[in-house]
């Protein structure tokens, strides 16, 4: 059997799997009855509902003819990696990882790291202009978030401020 819409089939699969997972998770809580609903009642209902809808979407993906087969196409792994990597680096540098003994480096260093890594996801990323952007954003963030809004964020690395 040939898949007629890739997007349809795989999204249906995703909904079914997630729905079953939620429903199965819900059964580990007390389900109760309609008049006395336990914490598992509503999620169990919804999980089953979603799994059924997911199956229906999979079914349409297999049977309803589409013009081009609605291919999912190539995943932009490079962009995913750089954007999420930038996010990860920002978190690690900003807050540190106490459980792994990584010290916090503060906001400014985290901003430079985020901008430099994120910029790699674009097609043009000459270092000078990226550094310029990072500097503008670092100064801007300092003024907006630390100075004006007075958010409690560590600005400089722990080993400097102590």
């Amino acid at each position, binding site marked *: 059997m040939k898949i007629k819409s890739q*997007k349809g089939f*795989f*999204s249906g699969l*995703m909904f079914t799997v997630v*729905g079953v997972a*939620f429903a199965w*998770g*819900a059964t580990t*809580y007390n389900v109760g*009855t*309609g*008049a*006395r*609903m*336990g*914490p*598992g009642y*509503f*999620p169990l209902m*919804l*999980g089953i*509902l*979603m799994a059924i*809808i997911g199956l*229906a*979407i999979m079914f*349409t993906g297999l049977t309803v003819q589409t013009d081009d087969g609605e291919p*999912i*196409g190539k995943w*932009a792994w490079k*962009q*995913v990696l750089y*954007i*999420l990597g*930038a*996010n*990860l680096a*920002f*978190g*690690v540098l*900003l*807050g540190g990882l106490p459980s792994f003994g990584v010290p916090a480096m503060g906001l400014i260093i985290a*901003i430079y790291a*985020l*901008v430099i890594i*994120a*910029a790699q*996801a*674009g*097609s043009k*990323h000459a270092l000078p*202009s990226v550094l310029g*952007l990072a500097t503008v*954003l670092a100064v801007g*963030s300092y003024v907006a*978030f630390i100075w004006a*809004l007075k*958010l*409690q*964020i560590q600005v400089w690395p722990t080993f400097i401020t102590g």
Partner: protein
Amino acid sequence: MELIHNLSIGFGVAFTGVNLLYCLVGCILGTLIGVLPGIGPVATIAMLLPATYALPPVSALIMLAGIYYGAQYGGSTTAILVNLPGESSSVVTVIDGYQMARKGRAGPALAAAGLGSFFAGCVGTLILAAFAPPLTELAFKFGPAEYFSLMVLGLIGAVVLASGSLLKAVAMIVLGLLMGLVGTDVNSGVARFSFDIPELTDGIGFVAIAMGVFGYGEIIANLSQPEEDREVFTAKVTGLFPTKEDFRNMLPAVLRGTALGSSLGILPGGGALLAAFAAYTIEKKTKLRPGEVPFGKGNIRGVAAPESANNAGAQTSFIPLLTLGIPPNAVMALMVGAMTIHNIQPGPQVMTSNPELFWGLIASMWLGNAMLVILNLPLIGLWIKLLSVPYRFLFPSIVLFCAIGVYSTNNNTFDIWMVGIFGFVGYAFYKLGCEPAPLLLGFILGPMMEENLRRALLLSRGDWGVFVTRPISAGLLAAALLLLVIVLLPAVKAKRQEAFVED
């Protein structure tokens, strides 16, 4: 006149220096993100939610509201000048607006959009002020069964209007509802689906989902597409004012657009996007006057009607939020978030318990619309310049603001990991062709729906019949069913796909 008394309270609040300032800030930000393609009001409001902690609640809501309707103004600028919708609700404005610009009539097109929006905004605000009190009265008659049915209607409404596959949209709503249930169950104290992660017992952060899916997810999706050459009219926009003939054409279109937009905005699931689509479709159906430019070739009505409609819809979509506490679209869902941050429970009691907030917000919308006309017409040159900011500078900045914003909500790096995960999830949704907006709506309504369902069934001793034996509840469910049936009718189904694809 009670209305006048109420509005005078409102203007008293809105006319204070601080609130005028935040209204202006909101309008400028809204125009800014409206002009910039690739960033919408949902992501912006999500980014700014944490920043409003420090503000008084009225100022915060005034600013956030300004962003939403400001974006409707700004979106048209990009649509007309660059042939790209700056905002999803300006998608139809592109068709005739860009053609007008190519014929050297960018000025009148911008003016038609600006003036039409202003008129619609004023009418929308008045409707909001007039209809909110009676609807609030009605809302007090609502029991849990009615609320549950109303939410069902709202969610179905949101699905019907979503573009693309109906089934997928329903599934996204259910997924949103389920995600909304993560965390501690208020009744039993059981931590559900928290995988023993302490941060998850408070539930998944709304800001993290919104920013991940709408911020990161869209950036990745945008970057993965090949860069297209944007044709920007850097040439000076001359002759801003429409001719007499233009006025004669655009006036009825503005009126029709406003009427349509106001009524569609009130409907659950409605709002700016649907209003714009419907208004354009109706204009296309009306007869052309002799000598008028056909649609798709630069007809001024094709700009005036959808732009008026989207602004009117943006205004009136506040009605369900302020009177019933039920958000009709994703932006309003964020407003619920903003209100909860400030310890205001959205719903009919807002008007009585916080009259300054309620009327102040409404009055500020009128002031905001006036500011926007000034911001958008005389200062248009400024926004045109902005269009030349390349995306390669924009997207790292957006990533940064999302990351800082989400961190500052709880000062906890856990939220940063969550936003990353949802960024990937958002991109996966994009790849699988699933529209994310219904998910957000479901996420907000999940806990509310469970609570009302639980209460309704507790009162009826487990009898599901309560939803159809109570008249209001039955009516709401019937309306929801009717909506579904209409959409599934083969004739309408074909039309609906046409409406979202063709133009």
